[in-house]
């Protein structure tokens, strides 16, 4: 569980005119939930996840992970990596080893795992992202963009954190690649009972996997709640430059035209079920 209390972060405290990147952040991330962090470009999403993972120290406020104050100077980023694992935007650019296996093994090795444990973790992680043994000895630089992304994500999964943070994991991937990565992460969350925080710009992706949504606007947390709580406030989302899923717009229009359909529909799959129910009935 992560508790963020009154956190503020300024990139250049020398120049107050630039303002804070995030301000007055209060947030609780509970166990075993799939969170989605949404917000307009520059709203402070990336800063917030870097704060939560201990890569940035807040200028004010405190952050606790499982009751441990991570702002404490004695806490090393390395010890935090067991609890919280971050996959940054375009993580494929961090690959450096000569084989896929050894690149994924970098994290567990840093945690001090022994040979057998490393092997076990790497195998599990690569299986989670859908890469079989034939990839182990290939150079990560020979892979396609989507496959590189998977290797990089596996690199963090292999550290087996309690909370997995993904910053736009599907940016720049084709639709099939997006869906695969999303469902793999969702499955991982369900199997291991970990929490996931995913930054995303695609409301469709959010609707597919998340059960909780955190909305950021201009460095503040604008809303938090379940998927339907947040998506029901479409006007507020519009005012922050955000949207609701396309299909939800269609449903809203249908309701405006006196079609008797429930409003809490955010995925095409749900819409199909509801509409066919309506047509039959």
């Amino acid at each position: 569980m992560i508790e963020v209390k009154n956190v503020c972060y300024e990139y250049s405290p020398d120049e107050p005119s630039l303002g804070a990147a995030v301000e007055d952040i209060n947030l609780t991330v509970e166990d075993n939930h799939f969170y989605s962090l949404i917000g307009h470009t520059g709203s402070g999403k990336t800063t917030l996840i870097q704060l939560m993972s201990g890569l940035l120290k807040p200028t004010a406020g405190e952050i606790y992970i499982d009751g441990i104050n991570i702002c404490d100077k004695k806490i090393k980023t390395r010890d935090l990596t067991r609890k919280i694992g971050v996959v940054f935007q375009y993580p494929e650019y961090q690959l450096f080893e000569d084989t896929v296996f050894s690149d994924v093994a970098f994290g567990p090795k840093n945690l001090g795992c022994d040979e057998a444990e490393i092997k076990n973790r790497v195998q599990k992680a690569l299986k989670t992202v859908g890469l079989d043994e034939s990839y182990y000895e290939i150079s990560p630089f020979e892979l396609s963009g989507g496959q590189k992304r998977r290797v990089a994500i596996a690199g963090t999964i292999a550290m087996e954190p309690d909370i997995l943070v993904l910053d736009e994991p599907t940016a720049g991937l084709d639709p099939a690649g997006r869906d695969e990565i999303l469902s793999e992460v969702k499955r991982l969350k369900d199997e291991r009972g970990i929490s996931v925080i995913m930054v995303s710009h695609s409301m469709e992706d959010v609707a597919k996997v998340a059960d909780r949504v955190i909305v950021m606007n201009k460095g503040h947390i604008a809303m938090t709640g379940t998927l339907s709580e947040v998506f029901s406030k479409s006007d507020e989302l519009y005012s922050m430059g955000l949207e609701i899923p396309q299909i939800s717009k269609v449903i809203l229009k249908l309701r405006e035209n006196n079609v008797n359909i429930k409003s809490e529909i955010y995925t095409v799959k749900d819409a199909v079920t509801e509409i066919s129910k309506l047509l039959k009935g």
Partner: protein
Amino acid sequence: MIRDITLGQFFPGKSLLHRLDPRVKLLWVLVYIILLFLVNTALGFTLYVVITAVLIKLSGIRVKMFFKGMRPIVFLLVFTAVINMFMTAGEPIFKLGFLSVTKEGIRIAVFMALRLMLLVTGTSLLTFTTSPIMLTDAIERILSPFSKIGVPADAIAMMMTIAIRFIPTILEETDKIIKAQKARGADFESGNILARAKAMTPILIPLFISAFRRADELAVAMECRCYHGGEGRTRLKQLKISKIDIESLCFIPVLLILVIFSRQFSLGLM
């Protein structure tokens, strides 16, 4: 830490120093540096400090920025001052064990420190008031006569422009990679030198790969826009020597005379 580098920083403005032709400024910095090494008396240094202070005032840039630029050379300053103080032969003032501080030593130490500080301030004055593009334009124009003997002036200028342009980009990229590897538990701080050097591989390899990728992409983008070298290329902003440039050039002989004059006046000890 990585963001604190002031090297090559430019502060836009409209001061006299900003308006000077970059070629003139380049020449001035050259003269400033050469004459600085001719100065060897207290009078000469006083003169130099006053001139530099006036120039800083004229540039309209906060003095704080110049001190910030001096931060990286603090170690060098202290080191040379200490070495000079103890290692110069001459009349001893006091003894510290087997080391003795000499009058000549103190003199040389103070002068050397002043010289280094003025050197940094003088060159900072150039980079703070001249945009990198202007600077490379100036270098291109200065080198252009040599293109007849096969010096590719335009290519050199383009390379410099690109290199300067990519400093912030690469710094940002480095910062990102460091964070990503830290998130995977990489440790850059502990261990001996060898272990620390080895810990750099996860940063350097991705950095090199991305630098090559960027270079390749940039080359393609430039070719797509029909870049084919400097031949026949015209400029949006033509460099022109104006009245203030000529006036400022007239001060060069004045400074030269003042410096030579100051060499004749050693005031007592100094």
